[in-house]
């Protein structure tokens, strides 16, 4: 059987950053597997700008950001295979891959999960109605438009105010399609504020908060939708029904970390993040399998994805130096938090980057780090929004005080 020290699954922003950092740290035996016919991942279809503000203080487009990494990756001559789909990962880190040259298994010492995410579909959120053509996920419509040069429709309604939906509202308007409206089931938008302004306000596209699509109608092609206001339990109030004549419905209703392969490798998943449970080194429940990027949890900025890839590279170096199992301390979230990552920490770490998402918009709040009923740290926070991932660095001083379960709590006082 073929062998590789590190196999990275996925050549998008997480996988590329991890591969580059690993090689820069001196790891020679790396193999990156990419299922598409080019490196770069979803960035390739994100032709808008705004990428790289944090990492490079520059506003790259998606392809530029990707190319920046691909160039470095090529310069370092890191081995990779395109059109290579991983079909299976076993618990003992055997990767089965299918590519045009054959289908074979490779024994890895370390595997990096960097497969990204998939979009939630109509079936996931159960929109009733006809099964006509004209309903796509926003990312799929983006791929048709930006990669292939084809428009999927002329009069469009977008469900969900996720960033891809907002970006597509602008992109489609520029491509001479009429975006009739964007609806969001929550009472607040789920995209970055800059995207609400630049993609909806600037194009006079109405945003319907606390609304959802309750029916799609059409014979062959979508002909129209019914939009209803929802109550506080997010249940549609059918007496508020409005009808819109459109030929296309795009869904931007969330991303799901793509962990089908992780599950095959018996990696434990977090029901909230839908990604692997990881420790502060971003190692999963299976020793030697690490995760970074959208496969771990959904990010709003690619910069953070790249940084996670780099963090995993450092963790892998440490893992090669010392594979003793550690006594990890579980981290739990409390209060107005959707999740906290990592789900366990190694108190011997020098520093641990905690990432979290709030469960509702808050103008101010307090984040507490609690251990043994003692508040180790209380941090005031302002302008918190579920669409914006937050992070906080636990320093050595705090980590030294941690000796049992950590609770990360967000409250309004």
């Amino acid at each position, binding site marked *: 059987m073929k062998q590789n020290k590190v196999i990275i699954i996925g050549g998008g922003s997480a996988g590329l950053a991890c591969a580059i950092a690993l090689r820069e740290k001196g790891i020679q035996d790396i193999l990156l597997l990419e*299922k598409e016919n080019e490196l770069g991942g979803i960035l390739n279809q994100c032709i808008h700008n705004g990428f790289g503000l944090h990492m490079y203080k520059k506003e790259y487009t998606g392809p530029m950001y990707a190319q920046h990494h691909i160039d470095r990756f090529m310069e370092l001559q890191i081995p990779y295979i395109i*059109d290579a*789909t991983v*079909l299976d990962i076993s618990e003992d880190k055997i990767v*089965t891959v*299918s*590519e*045009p*040259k*054959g*289908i*074979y*298994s490779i024994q890895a010492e370390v595997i990096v999960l960097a497969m990204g995410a*998939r*979009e939630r*579909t*109509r*079936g*996931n959120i*159960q929109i*009733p*109605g*006809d*099964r*006509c*053509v*004209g309903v*796509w*996920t926003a*990312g*799929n419509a983006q*791929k*048709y*438009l930006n*990669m*292939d*040069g*084809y*428009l*999927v*429709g*002329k009069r469009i309604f977008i469900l969900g105010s996720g960033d891809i939906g907002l970006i597509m509202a602008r992109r489609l308007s520029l*491509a*001479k399609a009429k975006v009739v409206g964007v609806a969001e089931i929550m009472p607040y938008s789920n995209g970055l504020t800059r995207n609400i302004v630049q993609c909806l306000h600037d194009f006079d596209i109405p945003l319907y908060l606390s609304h959802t699509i*309750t*029916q799609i*109608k059409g*014979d*062959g*092609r979508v002909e129209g939708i019914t939009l209803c206001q929802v109550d506080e339990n997010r249940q*549609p109030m059918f007496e508020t029904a409005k009808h819109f004549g459109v030929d296309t419905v795009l869904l931007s209703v969330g991303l799901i970390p793509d962990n*089908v392969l992780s*599950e095959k490798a018996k990696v434990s998943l977090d*029901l909230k993040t839908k990604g692997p449970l990881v420790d502060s080194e971003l190692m999963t429940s299976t020793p030697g399998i690490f995760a970074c990027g959208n496969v771990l949890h959904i990010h709003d900025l690619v910069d953070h994805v790249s940084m996670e890839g780099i963090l995993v590279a450092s963790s892998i170096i440490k893992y090669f130096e010392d594979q003793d199992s550690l006594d990890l301390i579980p981290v739990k979230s409390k209060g107005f938090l959707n999740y906290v990552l990592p789900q366990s920490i190694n108190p011997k770490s020098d520093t641990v980057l905690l990432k979290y998402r709030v469960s509702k918009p808050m103008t101010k709040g307090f984040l507490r780090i609690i251990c043994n009923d003692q508040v180790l740290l209380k941090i005031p926070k302002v302008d918190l929004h579920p669409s914006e991932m937050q992070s906080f660095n636990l320093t050595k001083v705090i980590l030294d005080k941690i000796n049992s379960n950590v609770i990360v709590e967000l409250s309004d006082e």
Partner: protein
Amino acid sequence: MFDIIIIGAGIVGCNLAYQLSLTNLKVLVLEKNAEILNEVSSANSGIIHTGYDPKDDTLKALLNVKGAALTKELCEYFQVPFLQCGSMVVAHDDKEIDMLKALQIKAAQRKIPCELLSQEILRQKEPHIADSVIKALFFPTTGVIIPWELGYALMDNACFNGVTLKNSEAVIAVEKKSSYIVKTPKSSYEAKMVINCTGLYGDKVARLAQADYPINLIYKKGEYQVTDKTDASYLNHILFPLPTEKGKGVLAVKTVEGNLLFGPNSNIVEDPTHQDTTSIGLAEVNSRIHEIIKPLPQNRMIRQFAGIRPGSPTKDFIIENHEKWVNVIGIDSPGLASSPAIAQYVIEQFVQPEFHPETLNRELYIHPKPLLLMSLDERNALIKTNPNYGKIVCLCEDVSTQEVINAIHSPCSTRSIKGIKRRVRPGSGRCQGGFCESKIVDILSKELNIPKQQVLYDNDNTSFLTPMEDLYETK
């Protein structure tokens, strides 16, 4: 001049086309949709019922028992999956137990094997059965098939044997002379005999030949939920509630591919053209399924769909011949399981006395086995012959580019995204085509030698792409 024109390429039409293709008769199949098996035959539970349910002395009782056995034989012959997983009809109280016992007697009379299971045994066999279930009648021979896979195997072989199939040709008029002239918007065709097996439109098509045809079909819509394959191990058998006047009830079945299918409810609708799901209907399925199975630990529904079944007022199949015009009408449940026997019945009753056809020896056409079911060695051998077998186009369902190409060029060709989805599964997994649909468009465009804006999603009015260059005037 054809001997026989079959109108409608649903599962009945496919069975008829195949059985007639084994004779020296000249046969034409006219299908109004771009793809065969596009309506009733693709939107159903896929269950091969054993035949305990239909009333005595009905065509349904006769043809279901016979058809179930024939279906199994056909699946073996064509090497398409038939999963004999067995079924349980469940009871929640003493009254329902009495009904199970009555069903048991009826099954015994029809020589259908079955066994009454105690609480303990049924929970061993089916750990996630609902807590309220106290007894079950177990039918070990009930099976499940991929309805369109058998249908495609039948039609592929029919076409391979020389039957002519015309897709996208709806019959709009019929003229009766010494023979029948059957007209479509594109052409007209002449045949000595016509078999009308047009499912939802059976009564309307019958009236093209006989204006005063009295039967009016009753349309029953059933809605379904489909789960992610991750939940495959949640269910071992097909679970039914007790049958009622409305039908077999909201059932739970694991498809051959490993998705769980919950449904159908049953509501009478006026319009057979809209196979739409409704909030109320899906809510009904979501709640009634818990009468037989415990709620799944996670909601991982990937799709909802509805199927409409053409019921007859007599509640039985109607198979009749009037001056060499044969109507096969009202083929609702157990139509799929009965379909090979329906075709046999039509041929024995009406075709043989008229034509006395010769039986011919035909070669078998086997559609290539899915890579998913092959060993790595088998797959490698194929990749050596063609690298496209190594290029995976759909990760969710493990489908290679070459399998899609093969489906496009099979004897009864496939030319829509939905057709490809049925034949080789890209788009039927958890991403619902999010990752693969544009790649399927590429392959269809290339293989059919048409621009992408002509690639069909489903029927003829469903091309959906506009090239960007058409949007901007170039100077």
